[in-house]
């Protein structure tokens, strides 16, 4: 049996090569994602049996359970899932584009930009009584603007007859550190109330997500995910190096800009609604690489699901294990992800 399965339509006019192992793992992960989704919707202050949850998802079920699941739990779980997917895909794209395993949304300063914008927002629009003078609904917009501005700034500063990956990432590190410095500066200077509020945001949480967030976040993410999957194959070529990619007819600079913009759009929207959830963007692609290899057609979908599961589980643990305290999801993404990653590293130690 070969590694690939050829699928032909219209007498071979449209055909795909499907990686058997990757397809199997993707299907498995898809089932796991669904299970985690259902179980997560059933656990909380009020325990609900998974079968009832499925009934509710399809519009049936008792009224009380329906209320709890649809108004309180579903939006939150959906935001967690979508944010995890976005961060993982964006991280995978960045690592391929920059050709460096340490690349992640944080390293390029995109998350830092969003963080600085949010902390600045909290500082600028607070009055003496520590209450905000404008609606908190503007906060996601501030975060998104921060992410977008920083990513454009990094790109412009790195431009010199084109953008080379190493220049991009080094300037990203510089800007990212600068943003961290600004955040720390504002937190040290500002009152403690703001420091803890800002710290909560920086850690990343999906607490208080509502349907309005979901309606804004989901279409946006879906559009960019589809674009990401379409351009994923250009990353495979870019990974061979600029010379080879150019020689093979790739428009390297144009593709690079496009890839950076896709990542920024995905990262920006997820930090806007969930704050600076770390680890997923860095590690989900590495986990996927250990599972299905490094061809981006297989890597991106698998890392997307891994990221989604990771954030959902992290949020589930954060909101249930330490009741009545709520621990932000960002705390547990690394807490559960890192041991699993170390295990994968151990299992593939001789690869």
């Amino acid at each position, binding site marked *: 049996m070969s590694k690939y399965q050829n699928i032909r339509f219209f007498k071979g006019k449209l055909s795909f090569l499907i990686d058997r192992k990757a397809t199997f793992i993707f299907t498995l992960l898809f089932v796991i994602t669904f299970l985690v989704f259902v179980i997560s919707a059933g656990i909380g202050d009020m325990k609900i049996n998974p079968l009832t949850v499925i009934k509710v998802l399809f519009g049936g079920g008792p009224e009380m359970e329906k209320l709890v699941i649809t108004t309180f739990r579903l939006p939150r779980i959906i935001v967690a899932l979508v944010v995890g997917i976005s961060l993982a895909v964006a991280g995978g794209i960045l690592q391929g584009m920059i050709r*460096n*395993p*340490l*690349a992640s949304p944080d*390293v390029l300063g995109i998350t830092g930009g969003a963080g600085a914008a949010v902390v600045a927002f909290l500082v600028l629009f607070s009055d003496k009584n520590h209450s905000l003078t404008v609606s908190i609904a503007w906060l996601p917009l501030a975060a998104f603007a921060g992410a977008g501005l920083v990513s454009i700034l990094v790109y412009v*500063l*790195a431009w*010199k007859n084109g953008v080379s990956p*190493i*220049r991009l*990432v*080094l*300037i990203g*590190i*510089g*800007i990212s*550190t*600068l943003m*961290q*410095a600004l955040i*720390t*500066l504002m*937190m*040290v*200077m500002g009152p*403690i109330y703001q*420091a*803890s509020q800002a*710290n*909560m945001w*920086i*850690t990343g949480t999906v607490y208080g997500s509502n349907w309005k967030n979901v309606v804004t976040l989901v279409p946006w993410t879906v559009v960019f995910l589809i674009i990401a999957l379409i351009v994923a194959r250009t990353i495979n070529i870019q990974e061979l190096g600029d010379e080879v990619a150019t020689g093979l007819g790739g428009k390297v600079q144009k593709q690079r800009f496009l890839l950076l913009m896709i990542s920024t759009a995905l990262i920006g929207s997820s930090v806007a609604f969930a704050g600076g959830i*770390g*680890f997923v963007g*860095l*590690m989900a692609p*590495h986990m996927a690489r250990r599972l299905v290899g490094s061809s981006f057609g297989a890597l991106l979908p698998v890392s997307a699901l891994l990221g989604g599961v990771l954030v959902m589980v992290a949020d589930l643990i954060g909101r249930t294990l*330490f009741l009545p*305290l709520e*621990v*932000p999801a*960002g*705390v*547990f*993404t*690394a*807490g559960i*992800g*890192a*041991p699993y*990653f*170390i295990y994968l*590293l*151990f299992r593939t*130690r*001789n690869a």
Partner: protein
Amino acid sequence: MLLKSTTSKWAGLFVAIVLLILFMIASVIYGYTNTNWQTAIDAFTKYNGSNEHIIIQTVRLPRAFIAAAVGASLAIAGVLMQTLTKNPLASPGIFGINAGGGFAVVAAVTLFSVTDVHTFNALAFLGAAVAAVSVYAFGSFGREGLTPMKLTLAGAAMSAMFASFTQGLLVLNEAALDQVLFWLAGSVSGRKLETLVSVLPYIGVGWLGALLISGKMNVLAMGEDVAKGLGLNTGLIKIMIGVIVILLAGGSVAAAGPIGFVGIVVPHVTRSIIGIDHRWVIPLSGLLGAILLVAADIAARYILMPAEVPVGVMTAIIGTPFFIYIARRGFNGR
């Protein structure tokens, strides 16, 4: 590279030493209580117990020395890490040193209500060492032993884990956040001379060790196979690099808290000045790291006078524009 001949390299080192001394003197003289040359000299020769003299002897001088020692250690540790992992983005932080040290201190504050700064220092070193050793062990799984890729990945994962635990403890305990926020940002203020004396043996050994193996690191930088072919015991040299990084970066975390950026930036700047020969890169980056941190510490006193900005913040604000300039001009050394 800027300095090509051996003479100009020696001259470069000399200029860096002079600059460092000037900055250290400035660090002793200027601040909230401005003093002058004469007072500074009198404080040591004709000590009379006046306010200025006390400040110079007990506050300013230790601070200048700690900033210089920490800056030098972080920069040298950064050079070693970048060569060991063959990754220009690596820094001592990749070994989990900052995250481990930070976690140990925050755990002590939140779980055991420790408030003493000296205990912080010891715990930070311990946390840093534990994190680094575990990263090294995880990176050495498998037949080939330690490979740059595995080390980098294990380090990134462990750092992320410790950092998130730290965040978690701080989110759950807001009072502790107030207490350790300044420590977590990295600072050399309020440190006594004893702090320096207690870490100096570690980082002193680290400096010497780094200089001694600098020639071997040139060979290692050529790649694993070439280095083995040339008869280098790569396993041993990697362990030595690991130990030196733990001593240098662990000592720095203990003395000044987690200060980022110096370890990534200074090696790049140094290479663009003096080339890629580790026998030159290690001493010069030590000097430049010291200069950056001492300068940042002086600036940190003036931004929000009379309050102080954490020096970790200032290194980023001073260093970033310079770093971006160098990154745009291109790293000729590599």
